[in-house]
């Protein structure tokens, strides 16, 4: 009886709550991306300086990233909220989050303060703690994204 049942069908049999939770998480995930993109789209020069301070990309790529990345975030966010091309949008979102986390951890490990683009050698500076909080926040969002990706793939199958 249950063999031909799809994952979404079992949701309905199990109760609609999980559906609303997933919808809520999907909207949350999308809203975070849309919100993150707005200020960067409005201030590309300032965002370029932030990217430069990360000291990851070659100088020639900094402006291209500052111009393109916020629009990618906006498109991803809107697609996730609307449920359009969901697997692809979620994958993009998760890839970006993984990249942001990786870059932050790398800069923490080499002692780079991304606020000023400067290295700090003295122990006890609060700056790494702030960066670690950002890592934790992004990791939490990534876990939401991975869960949503898993449920989206399961629903397609």
């Amino acid at each position, binding site marked *: 009886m249950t063999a031909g049942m799809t994952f979404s069908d079992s949701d309905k049999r199990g109760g609609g709550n999980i559906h609303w939770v997933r919808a809520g998480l999907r909207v949350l995930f999308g809203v975070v991306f849309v919100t993150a993109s707005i200020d960067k*789209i409005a201030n*590309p*020069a300032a965002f*370029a*300086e932030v990217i*430069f*301070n990360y*000291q990851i990309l070659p*100088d*020639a790529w*900094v*402006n*291209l990233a*500052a*111009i*393109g990345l*916020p*629009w*990618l975030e*906006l*498109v*991803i966010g809107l*697609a996730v909220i609307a449920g359009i*091309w969901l*697997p*692809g*949008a979620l*994958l*993009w979102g998760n890839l970006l989050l993984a990249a942001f986390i990786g870059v932050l951890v790398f800069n923490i490990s080499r002692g*780079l303060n991304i606020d*000023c*683009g*400067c*290295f*700090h*050698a*003295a*122990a*006890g*500076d609060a700056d790494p703690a702030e960066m670690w909080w950002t890592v934790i926040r992004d990791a939490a969002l990534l876990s939401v994204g991975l869960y949503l990706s898993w449920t989206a793939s399961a629903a397609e199958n």
Partner: protein
Amino acid sequence: MARQLIGLWFMSALLALAANSLRPDGIAWVGDWSPEARIGGNSGGSRVISLEESAERFETGDAIFVDARSAAEYEAGHIQGAISFPWQDFDAVFESVFPLLPEDRPLIVYCDGEACSLSKDLVQALAELGFSNARVLVNGWSVWRAHGLPIEGGGGE
């Protein structure tokens, strides 16, 4: 999935291209992130000083070196004879440091890191206060030590 990934990227790239081309405050597709471009003076001249010139001025004693890093980093090691003027505590330390800065002698301001903006921001603030001779030694702390030039303070590594 690949089609969704490419489609989302293509859409965002088109939007980014259009937005940056049409907006009056669009940024250059490839920016000039050289120290001279980032730290240019209002009169068009560069506010960057070379290591060689800095070392010469250190030998002659006619320049005052200013450390824009935090007090903790200054205590851990600084260019010999440098004054501590942490940019991030500018308001708090201004009154105590300002009397130490002669207006008629060159000020060589430094921090740590190629992209470090502390020295740049401090030089700009000093220029607005009338210190037209303030200049930035880019990545000063690291290059000074790398060339075995005189330092003082604990550690230094």
